[in-house]
């Protein structure tokens, strides 16, 4: 298996969950780095839907049981999303969707606790074209804005029914303001800690009074046909002026008193002020550094200031921002390669692309991902997942090693066949597996450990029997190794 240029493998590990063998052939052609980056950035959102390919040959399996209902069953929704991660022709769209799911971390369990399992799944993941009321689940919103304008995404997420339940906006009424959403909007979604005050939280809560949720029951109760929509309720809006510690308008920190009917403008003005706050721009740049460039060291100041500027100059256009990120000298610097701890979703999808997936099912990812501490649609809290070293406990590391085993076992015959051209010596077999897994040049100690494993148990003949055992065993060892947990 030919290796691609280190930068190309790096680009696809970071922005596309890795490369399948077919991808490698496709991208071996004479493409410049810039062309490859553009191929990830530029896609027509109307053509990236791969859901219709679920259940067709040549794809990873999806276990939908007796009744296919990925819009109303959260485990099926999880499977559908993982299928998209593996097969989307626009993998960066899926990668950004995952990033936004972490940024706007919303957990299904709270929604289901309020409206039941079916509507909980709808609010998280319903696909508008398939939902009886055309409901757009939160993850579809995040996908729609994957590389869209962040200021617009902020407005949409503030009105998103799942978010209105998750951060209690639906209970935010005049006279009894609910602080949950306003607090997190500033602390987690935009400027971050240190750039807003406790009185700002109280003012923000009042700004969003009346930003509520309307549920209309169409059928007979919890049958998945109720409609959920944001509605601005003028009668519940606090019409007084609100003061902040930062500018809302040029030269003014005050949202003026407004009549109830026009009061929705309060929230729009606050969101806009926060989206264009210079600290939001810098925080976004630092987060993008962590998500795409390096999380073993702090972001370069030059990176932060240049990305923050692009963010503001482009009207928060994330496609423009990501183009600069992926073309940045820092992204291309080899010392930043393999310096991110792979999220469990990144680890499993990369493994599938590099080890193989035909005959495997995304349903078999669900329990391992829980054991690795990343259950999609169930972040631990509104702060999202604890990234970096925090992914790794003895139990979660064991889960990663065991997933590598499960996949290698499932693919063992295919792996034997792929390994046949490399059967001549243990060294060639080891080199082949390192290449297939797009791993960095191994340290001698690790290379020797892999070699010792192949040699263990008797003289190497390269027989089919040996290959069947050792190629699957070697994929298990290396995909389950510490080195492979970095992207």
């Amino acid at each position, binding site marked *: 298996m030919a290796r691609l240029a280190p930068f190309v493998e790096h680009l696809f590990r970071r922005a596309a969950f890795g490369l399948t063998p077919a991808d490698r052939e496709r991208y071996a052609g004479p493409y410049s780095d810039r062309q490859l980056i553009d191929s990830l950035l530029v896609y027509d959102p109307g053509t990236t839907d791969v859901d219709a390919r679920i259940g067709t040959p040549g794809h990873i399996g999806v276990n939908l049981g007796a009744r296919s209902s990925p819009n109303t069953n959260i485990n099926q929704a999880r499977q559908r999303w993982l299928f998209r991660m593996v097969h989307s022709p626009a993998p960066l769209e899926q990668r950004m969707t995952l990033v936004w799911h972490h940024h706007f971390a919303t957990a299904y369990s709270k929604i289901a606790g309020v409206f039941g399992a079916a509507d909980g799944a709808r609010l998280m993941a319903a696909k508008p074209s398939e939902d009886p009321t055309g409901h757009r689940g939160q993850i579809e919103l995040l996908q729609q804005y994957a590389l869209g304008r962040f200021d617009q995404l902020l407005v949409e997420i503030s009105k998103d029914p799942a978010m209105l339940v998750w951060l209690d906006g639906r209970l935010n009424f005049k006279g009894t303001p609910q602080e949950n959403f306003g607090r997190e909007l500033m602390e987690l979604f935009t400027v971050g800690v240190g750039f807003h005050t406790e009185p700002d939280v109280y003012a923000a809560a009042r700004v969003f009074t009346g930003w509520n949720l309307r549920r209309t029951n169409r059928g007979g109760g919890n049958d998945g046909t109720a409609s959920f929509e944001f509605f601005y309720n003028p009668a519940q809006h606090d019409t007084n002026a609100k003061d902040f510690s930062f500018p809302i308008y040029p030269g003014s920190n005050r949202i003026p008193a407004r009549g109830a009917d026009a009061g929705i403008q309060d929230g729009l003005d606050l969101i806009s002020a926060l989206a264009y706050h210079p600290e939001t721009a810098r925080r976004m740049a630092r987060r993008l550094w962590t998500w795409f460039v390096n999380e073993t060291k702090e972001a370069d100041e030059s990176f932060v200031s240049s990305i923050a500027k692009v963010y503001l100059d482009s009207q928060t256009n994330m496609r423009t921002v990501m183009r600069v990120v992926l073309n940045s000298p820092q992204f291309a610097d080899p010392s930043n390669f393999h310096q991110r701890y792979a999220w469990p979703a990144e680890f499993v999808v990369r493994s599938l692309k590099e080890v193989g997936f035909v005959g495997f099912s995304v349903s078999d990812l669900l329990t391992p991902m829980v054991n690795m501490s990343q259950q999609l649609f169930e972040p631990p809290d509104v702060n999202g997942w604890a990234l970096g070293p925090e992914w790794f406990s003895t139990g979660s590391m*064991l889960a990663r090693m065991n997933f590598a085993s499960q996949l290698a076992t499932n693919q063992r015959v295919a792996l034997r066949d792929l390994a046949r051209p490399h059967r001549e010596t243990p060294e060639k077999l080891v080199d082949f597996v390192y290449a297939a897994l797009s791993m960095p040049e191994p340290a001698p100690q690790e290379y020797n450990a892999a070699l010792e494993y192949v040699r263990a148990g008797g003289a190497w003949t390269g027989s089919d029997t040996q290959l069947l055992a050792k190629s699957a065993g070697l994929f298990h060892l290396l995909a389950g190794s510490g080195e492979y947990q970095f992207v």
Partner: protein
Amino acid sequence: MKFTRREFIKGGVSAFTVGFAAPAFLSDLALAQGASDRNLVVLYLSGGNDALSMLVPYTDSFYYSRRPTLAVPAGNVLQIGGDSSGKPLGLHPRLTGLKQIYDQGQLALVQRTGYQNSSRSHFLGTDIWSTANPGNATGTGWLGRYLDTLPSPVDPLAGWSTVRELPRTLRSDKVSVPAIPNVAGYALQSPNTGVEATYSRTGLSALASHLPPERPHLSFVNGTAQAALATLDRVGSVATYVPTVPYPNTGLGQAFLAVAGAMVRGIGTKVFWVQTGGFDTHASQGVNQANGAYWGLMNTVNGAVGAFYTDLANHGLLGNTMILQFSEFGRRISENVSTGTDHGAGAVMLAIGGNVRGGLYGTAPSLNPSSPTLENNGNDVRYETDFRSVYAQVIENWLGTNSIPILGGDFRQPTLSFI
């Protein structure tokens, strides 16, 4: 040397990994840190346990007038005497095993536990009980901070969560507590069997032993892999444990079975987490019917705790263990129109063990709506004992360390002498 996971993230040096347990001395570590042999089993009843159905004030006329459907008839309660104010109390009729433990003087009940401005949110409430910090319920848990006081490096099996998600209570800076919901599942898989599988394990260990100082992050992950591989056999030894009495085939029963196995095998774990859910009984609470929801919950608790208690007694290990039960809040006093109860405040806590001084601690509320023992316009039971005072008692008199730094204040209360 104190070096936390969080500092590691910021500092990015190899000290964490170098101090991190190397397999050769893991067993020594467990021995040293397990030297006291004492352990604590935290039992969390998830959803907000209805304290008034577990510990019944069966002579309070308001209990019957406010719970026309849900009140336990006085003739059915398991009477356990009166509290210090002389108010008679009884256990839920299904708690026959707990009644026996009470009669042996090894069950303490602490009534009306909680804190000022009790949260009625499951999420926030659980976080507050977990962090022991009502002001800022984020970050590490109270038992995680206890684990952080152990000499470094901390044995990776010092804590053990029997549920999949690591509870915040066990979230620590210095040790990553494993979530082991199923001991049989905490095993290394391999694509091959027999001797080939042992080669896989040897190979993974060899790969994980690469701890390059110039790559601290790789070293950290490899160190974690080493720790996982090095604890497999200890956890595996638990999987082969055969109990002296049958355990119920419930999630809680099987969790307690694993805890008993870990104790009997002496693997060195100091803090266990077990939990069972279903306590958010907003509707059809079914306190009095054998097929009722709450009756079933009490059956689950009684069966699992009873088997565990008897099993440990048979091994002579009761003196080494203590079960501490909590829930995020108690429930509303008056039943609602769906014959359930909504989120309330004051809760009941249980402590069980060979060294527990059994009895009733604290005083029962008067359920008269105008009583000062209530809050929220007489709708909820007001707390009397700060839950952190219960924690302080456990930390000081059972785990044997200073509670003040762990709880961020002095919550010791001499009258609360259940250990």
